[in-house]
């Protein structure tokens, strides 16, 4: 471990390369979040036998831009009894934490460009998995502080429910991921993907994959786990009092979180950028093809999340907590024991 921690980075990274990659990833995340809102509305419309947004641009493709302009020009109201600092800080924290988690997710394998080792992520960290878990956990603060700062009873209820739900499912997710760490022998996401050359981890760790996906739905406050918002009982939950661009930041954070959990699931269970159809190309073109594979797999997961949201009803709160503590957590522990014994049995034979 100590020896591993000593060499963090492989090859030189120039700060301007990181800067360019940062701008590209930020642009990608913002665009993805904007178009996911459109995709969500289109998917929901088709599930409910409607057409969905189709007036702004061809197929409604300019709808996200129109929404952004609308959010900017809405009057920015705020309740008089709010906590001023936290009310301002919490939405920024939500969006910031969601975006920062993406820094270590490798969109493709390291490629050699004229002798320069190009990483397809911002930072090649060997504790990447722990980093993602830690940063996404900051989202709990954003939701709780945001709901509390509004000084609204519905917001407070949403925030309380949300923090209890998020921490419960976060733990189940963390236990589920241990199985992957055992098999990959690493916390580095790039090495975890490379360990799936022969078989994707969804094949070897189906239970962990299922636990992670259920946990991811809860972590992103998606139906059937959207208790923090529960619009039929809590108005809009923790962001009831947020309007204009403050609301926009919460919305951005939620959709970027979706992209992050789906990307992480792709890297951990679906073989990341590894292609289904072999394509051997070592330079930047090969890397770019890897990115396409990665995003394709992540898009399928994103569609699955939307499909679930518009098909399943919401769980009752006590059922939700029971599922987290009495089903997912013991199953996560069981998965560690099974994986450990199988690895031990295979080493013995």
């Amino acid at each position, binding site marked *: 471990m100590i020896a591993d921690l000593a060499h963090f980075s492989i090859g030189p990274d120039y700060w301007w390369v*990181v800067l360019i990659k940062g701008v590209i990833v930020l642009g990608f995340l913002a665009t993805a979040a904007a178009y996911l809102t459109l995709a969500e509305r289109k998917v929901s419309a088709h599930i409910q036998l409607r057409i969905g947004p189709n007036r702004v641009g061809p197929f409604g493709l300019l709808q996200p831009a129109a929404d952004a302009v609308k959010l900017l020009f809405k009057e920015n109201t705020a309740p*008089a009894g709010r906590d001023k600092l936290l009310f301002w800080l919490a939405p920024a924290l939500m969006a910031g934490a969601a975006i920062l988690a993406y820094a270590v997710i490798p969109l493709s394998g390291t490629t050699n460009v004229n002798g320069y080792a190009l990483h397809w992520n*911002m930072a090649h960290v*060997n504790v990447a998995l722990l980093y993602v878990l830690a940063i996404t956990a900051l989202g709990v603060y954003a939701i709780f502080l945001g709901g509390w700062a509004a000084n*609204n009873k519905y917001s407070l209820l949403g925030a309380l429910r949300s923090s209890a739900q998020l*921490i419960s499912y976060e733990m189940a997710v963390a236990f589920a991921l241990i199985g992957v760490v055992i098999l990959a022998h690493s916390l580095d996401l790039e090495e975890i993907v490379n360990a799936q050359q022969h078989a994707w981890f969804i094949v070897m760790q189906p239970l962990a994959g299922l636990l992670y996906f259920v946990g991811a739905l809860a972590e992103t406050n998606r139906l059937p786990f959207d208790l923090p918002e529960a619009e039929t009982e809590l108005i809009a939950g923790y962001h009831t009092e947020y309007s204009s661009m403050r609301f926009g930041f919460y919305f951005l954070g939620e959709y970027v979180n979706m992209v992050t959990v789906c990307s992480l699931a792709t890297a951990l269970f679906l073989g990341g950028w590894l292609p289904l159809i072999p394509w051997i190309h070592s330079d930047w073109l090969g890397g770019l093809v890897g990115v396409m594979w990665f995003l394709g797999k992540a898009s399928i997961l994103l569609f699955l999340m939307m499909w679930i949201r518009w098909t399943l009803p919401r769980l009752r*709160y006590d059922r939700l907590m029971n599922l987290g503590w009495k089903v997912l957590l013991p199953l996560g522990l069981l998965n560690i024991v099974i994986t450990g014994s199988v690895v031990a049995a295979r080493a013995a034979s």
Partner: protein
Amino acid sequence: MLSSFGNIAIFAGVAVGIPAGTLGLALLLGRLLRVRRPHPAKDDTYESGMSTRGPAWVQFNVQYYLYALIFVLFDVEVLFVVPWALAYRDLDKGYGFAEIALFIAILLAGLGYAWRRGALEWE
């Protein structure tokens, strides 16, 4: 040449700087273009039209604290399992497996205790 966390620091700069810049510009534009008709009713707490009674910052269900307490315990345990999972390939399998089985048995006993004492029941 930078360490990896230096890279993250640069990205943090980008991730904060560009949205902050855009937001600043947008707020400036918004201030110029946005409708602004203040009214005391607009600053009220929203409760579907009812006027609010008392502050929202009150005592709440103790059950949330119980979940938080159990969470802190188990979340620390996850961190103990991670180094084991990383080293498992190099460990003697019988010894390594017996160790984690014992650890998980203790964890399950803890969970069972909390369960039986009703700490996981929502009322």
